């Protein structure tokens, strides 16, 4: 029997995903939206790392590899998101997503 239970970890990542989803649905500021997406993404990465440490099958090493790749994906997504923030701010003078219905001039 291990010290760290599967219930605790999956419960934590479910809670973090719920918080991220709540942020995605309620926040109107683009930067807060990006932060919410990051929180939800971190919840998913946590699952990969947990199942790498306690693999149900033979090797859990792939779990850590995929977590590394996912961290890279998330970083790229933030970079592109901030480019959209800058473009939106220049075009509309605001980063409120409710007022962003188009990105062209």
């Amino acid at each position, binding site marked *: *029997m*291990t*010290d*760290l*239970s*599967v*219930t*605790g*970890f*999956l*419960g*934590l*990542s*479910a809670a*973090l*995903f*719920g*918080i991220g*989803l*709540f942020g995605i*649905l*309620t*926040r*109107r500021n683009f*930067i*807060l939206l990006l*932060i919410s997406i*990051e*929180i939800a993404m*971190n919840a998913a990465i*946590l699952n990969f*790392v*947990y199942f*790498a*440490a306690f*693999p*149900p099958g033979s090797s859990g*090493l*792939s779990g*850590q*590899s995929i*977590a*590394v*790749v996912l*961290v*890279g*994906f*998330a*970083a*790229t997504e*933030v*970079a*592109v998101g*901030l*480019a*959209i*923030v*800058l*473009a939106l701010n220049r075009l509309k003078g605001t980063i409120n997503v409710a007022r962003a219905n188009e990105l062209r*001039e």
Partner: protein
Amino acid sequence: MSLEELAFLALALVAVGTAAAALLVRELVHTILWVAIFFVDLSAIYFLLDAPFLGVLQLGVYAGAVTILLLFGIMTTRKRIFSREAVTGIGSVPVALALVTFIFLVSAIGEFPQSETPIQSYDPTALSANLFGVNGPWLLLLGLIMLAGVAGAIYLVREGRD
């Protein structure tokens, strides 16, 4: 209760608390501070799970780069960075939807059997062999997506588009 369990409990509470605080405080700069603590806390959880490489990656990429990028985004989009965010009404539908998702995810936990083995730790050499071997295509895909991301970001922010 063992030391690991206590450490996990404390780290999990801090993670949930900081994630919630990040989305509920009204000053954007405070949001960034809370989310930075959240990222550092998650990296501590990775160290607890014997994944030091991911812990360091989390510290470098998330707590370092992503936090600074978000701060940079705030600094370039507003005149006074400590100005407050307008209150947005928290509707009952998003809260209900998030709660339903949470309950749905929690209800699926029972499907996973409790692991009987001790924590598996991996040597960084084995991890890199796996990353560049079996999971090489994913790494290649990551490289291509990053390249596309850089090109797209430059396209979005360039001056004088027509």
